[in-house]
């Protein structure tokens, strides 16, 4: 029987090391995923070598979509594509048990201003397509399967056909994200049936904005931070990037005993 796979994007570029405050956070993430995959009979694929070497010209966020099916040689069922600015809680219920064969992702409503500006900014590139912001997904956490290979091939084709223009939008014209908004447009233009109704515990983002880092200071009977207590997948975005190692290390110090 084919296995489900976690495809963990975990590429370390020396040139970005300072920007990210080092890469220890990726190692922490990997340790958590190794444990969870082992516990749930899921294969872990650490995606650390993209096909193209130039991370400025070809962002890793784009490349992951093009490389995923090439990199996974063996037979597999569903693929959970997640970035390594994440820690999976040790006892997270197996997400694959909850899924059908639709493209599955999580709606992004953390910073709606950013999303709105990004969607409006990219609109001309997509012939003023009437985009539904109510279905805007976060690209850092999605589950796909073989059925979606043709779509990802179309994304790749679109990318190379419009590469210079995409770089212009990304770096000068819009400056709101890399793959995420164009990917969202393509998802809607191609009418990919997308499931955005998974419990948000599998995608806790912007922990600080959501005020999830604290504890119940009124009851004072449990010092476990809310995100650890209630979340399954903790994602370390929405913070300054160079604080990621520090924040993920602090979390790891609290929870690491559970991963033995």
């Amino acid at each position: 029987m084919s296995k489900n796979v976690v495809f963990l994007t975990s590429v370390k570029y020396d040139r970005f090391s300072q920007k990210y405050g080092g890469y220890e956070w990726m190692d922490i993430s990997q340790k958590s995923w190794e444990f969870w995959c082992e516990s749930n009979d899921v294969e872990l694929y650490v995606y650390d070598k993209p096909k193209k070497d130039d991370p400025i010209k070809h962002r890793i966020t784009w490349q992951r979509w093009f490389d995923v099916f090439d990199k996974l040689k063996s037979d597999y069922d569903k693929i959970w594509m997640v970035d390594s600015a994440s820690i999976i809680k040790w006892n997270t219920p197996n997400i694959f048990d909850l899924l059908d064969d639709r493209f599955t992702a999580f709606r992004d409503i953390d910073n709606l201003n950013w999303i709105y500006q990004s969607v409006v900014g990219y609109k001309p590139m997509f012939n003023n397509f009437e985009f539904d912001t109510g279905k805007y997904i976060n690209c850092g956490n999605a589950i796909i399967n073989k059925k979606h290979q043709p779509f990802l091939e179309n994304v790749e084709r679109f990318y190379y056909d419009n590469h210079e223009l995409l770089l212009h939008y990304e770096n000068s014209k819009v400056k709101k994200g890399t793959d995420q908004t164009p990917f969202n447009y393509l998802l809607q233009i191609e009418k990919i049936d997308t499931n955005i109704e998974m419990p948000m515990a599998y995608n806790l983002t912007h922990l600080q904005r959501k005020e999830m880092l604290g504890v119940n200071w009124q009851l004072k009977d449990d010092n476990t931070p809310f995100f650890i207590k209630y979340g399954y997948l903790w994602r370390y975005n929405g913070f300054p990037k160079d604080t990621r190692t520090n924040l993920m290390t602090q979390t790891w110090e609290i929870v690491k005993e559970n991963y033995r």
Partner: protein
Amino acid sequence: MKNVVVMTAVKVPGMEERSIPYKYGIASFKKWCEKNDCELFVLDTALHEHDVMRINFHRYYAFDLLEQSGIEYDQICITDADAIIHPECPNFFEMTEGKYTVTSCDGSFDWIFRSLENYSKYVFEGKTFPFWNYFNAGFQVVNKNHRHLWNELIDFYFSNQELIVSMQKNFGVGTDQPVINYIVNLSDTKTKYLPYEFCMADLVRKEILNLDFTFLNFKGIYQFNAIPQQIKQQYDIEFWMKTSYEKLYGK
């Protein structure tokens, strides 16, 4: 039989100025209801003294109120009077599938988790439910099959009045909202969760409450809550509601 939007717009003694901008919320829903062949019912008189029952709980009398007023109804939506609806907000009555329809709370999760935990511990005997099902009480769509839940809430309130009032006073994590959440979520009621747009709370946290009125680009229902004091000192709730209304519906 029509679908009915029920709004609570009562002047609470001592808090009269809060109700000043309600007229914009009411006017927006009036126009939306006309466009969508629905009826608007505004509750503007308190059913109990404020010290007996906070105004938020009064909306759960909606079934009785409509019947006493001779209004036949299919579905009921309860919403806040300090909310403005976009004229092109989709007709949520057509999206319910006959289920108890709400939107998830998405704002300060410190507040949501404390509300969930504190009411679990002191009011609901340690029972709980998944936090992602905690809904905003400012937008609920129901039908006659759900009437027993609202009756249950009112009965529960009067059976536990002292405790509920003390919870409000001591913890400040909701009035009717945690109670109706526990009643619905601990029952076997079939629920439907609509997107955030149908109850757009905490606009500041979403970074869309600004002088460009970015939030108006989302065709939903705007809740003017959780606005920090330093913003309100310069631009009060009336400013946001009046200007929003005029931008959407004209002067």
